[in-house]
């Protein structure tokens, strides 16, 4: 991996963060002036004006944007208007919860999706394959919130096995992680299946068989890198979606993460907080994709990092 490559990636990351922050800035400013929402009713107009001044909402839009960029470079998003704390601090307080949830969801996805896909490929067009297909389709057609509520009704209310509110320890991670991951399980099982099918019909399998090697051994050895690459690609693609899904999962499970925070922040028109949340979300997506790119050459030596 060359320094040049790293630089290019860094430039790309900066561009993406700038672009996303700008989009959010524009959308928020188009929504109008939040100051009237921030002050109590019956506030005298001159006070409203001075607050507007203080928060910088009365400057020309371009100047506001310039100031915003200037502070963005220093990672200064300002004070959260509803929490009365630095916006970035509020986000980082919640960040570990969301990260934990996302990691657990991905783990669930892989642990269920991959075996299901392999089974389906090995027993193609059999009952198992059909079953896997149906599971996959159910996974894609059931909205996250619906899955979450059903899981709560069954596992928390009916069987009283698992907690359903908040982050109270490892056991409370299970239901939200399953809820968040189930959508991707469907996709990963389908992709694993096709990655395996590709190997099944490839020439080297025929060669290997001719050499008298056991089919399963060959399959696993050759299919593994293929499957891993598929997985890495999909996780990269899905990660942003997964974080988006966290908005809903965290609401259903009262999970103290940034997804729920995002809803509150947008609802309160807490501009600095919204900016900080989107920035952190996007940074995470970029970072994860970068790390996954570094994984490719490790999995398959034929691929070199650019």
């Amino acid at each position, binding site marked *: 991996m060359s320094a040049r490559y790293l630089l290019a990636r860094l430039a790309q990351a900066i561009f*993406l963060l700038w672009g*996303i922050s700008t989009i959010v800035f524009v959308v928020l400013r188009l929504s109008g002036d939040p100051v009237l929402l921030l002050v109590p009713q019956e506030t005298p107009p001159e006070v409203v004006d001075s607050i507007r001044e203080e928060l910088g909402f009365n400057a020309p839009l371009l100047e506001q944007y310039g100031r915003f960029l200037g502070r963005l470079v220093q990672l200064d998003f300002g004070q959260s208007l509803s929490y009365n704390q630095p916006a970035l601090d509020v986000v980082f307080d919640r960040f570990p919860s969301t990260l934990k949830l996302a990691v657990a969801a991905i783990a669930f996805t892989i642990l269920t999706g991959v075996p299901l896909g392999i089974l389906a490929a090995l027993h193609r067009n059999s009952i198992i394959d059909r079953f896997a297909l149906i599971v996959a389709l159910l996974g*894609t057609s059931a909205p996250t919130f*619906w899955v979450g509520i059903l899981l709560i009704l069954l596992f928390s209310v009916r069987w009283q096995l698992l907690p359903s509110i908040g982050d109270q320890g490892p056991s409370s991670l299970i239901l939200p992680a399953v809820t968040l991951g189930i959508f991707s399980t469907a996709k990963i099982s389908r992709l694993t299946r096709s990655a395996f099918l590709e190997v099944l019909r490839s020439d080297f399998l025929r060669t290997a068989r001719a050499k008298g090697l056991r089919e399963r051994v060959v399959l696993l050895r050759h299919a593994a890198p293929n499957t891993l690459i598929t997985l890495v690609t999909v996780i990269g693609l899905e990660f942003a979606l997964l974080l988006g899904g966290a908005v809903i999962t965290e609401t259903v499970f009262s999970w103290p993460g940034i997804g729920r925070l995002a809803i509150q922040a947008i609802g309160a028109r807490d501009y600095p907080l919204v900016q900080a949340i989107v920035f952190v*979300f996007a940074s995470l997506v970029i970072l994860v994709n970068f790390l996954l790119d570094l994984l490719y050459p490790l999995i398959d030596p034929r691929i070199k990092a650019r």
Partner: protein
Amino acid sequence: MDGMPAQTQTLASNLSSKPRRNALTRFRANWPVIIGLLIVLLCAAAAICAPWIAPYAPEQQNLRNQFAAPIGFGGTSEHWLGTDQLGRDILSRLIYGARISLIVGFSAVAISGTVGILLGLISGYYGRWLDAIVMRFVELQLTFPFMLLALLVLAVFGGGLRNIVIVLSIAGWAVYARVLRSEVISTREQLYVEAARSAGVRDARLLARHIFPNVMSSMIVLATFSVAAMIVQESALSFLGLGIPPDQASWGGMLADGRNFLTIAWWLGTLPGLAILAVVLSMNLIGDWLRDVTDPTIRNTR
């Protein structure tokens, strides 16, 4: 959001070069697809004929007849599928709901598909700086968690059918652009395209006549999967209170509403849920089938 299987990206695309009879026999052998198509057609018919076949107006309330059960569960033939918390007829709302849900699904796919395909064609064919710009936007879109963007835009600009379709379209276009771009790049290098170009065929014509038809099939497959995903997403937006206005019936909205009554009147959420499930299943079956008949490598092993 994208419902986009990676193998479509490696799709060889030569639907047109295969004998038609072959596809037909395949179709006959593939009964799930027929069922899928029938379901989709049925929904489309319901959507179109809603005013004539629905027993009630979808917004017509009867506050004295809340939570009437479906027929077979203690209900009467007055309301075949029961009523909701405002005494509205579920069957009528499902029929009218097909309208909005299909409009949301298909128009979001149509818009995002068109935009994505155009940008993908341009980006893949011309390459260089145009390509660089389009690809930066693609990356931007894929990095921005959709749900956050949707929340933000709908909260600020308000919900409603139009805005929801716009938001879903914004979320969808990038995948088309990226897939198409890579296909165009590989097609561009093929002999017949080279030949046409050296024969002096103009760019627009070349794109429209030679390249576009060849990459079309993978786009159709992709679109089929996306329609289903869009319908599910509309439900998620309703859950967050940013969906279609509640008097208009949409399956996603009914499903989201129904969650509050799950333990006291299961039919409110379950029935629209089944409708969504049926359409998503159908679209996926159709998509799978399209993929299989258009992908020669898969066909050989089938």
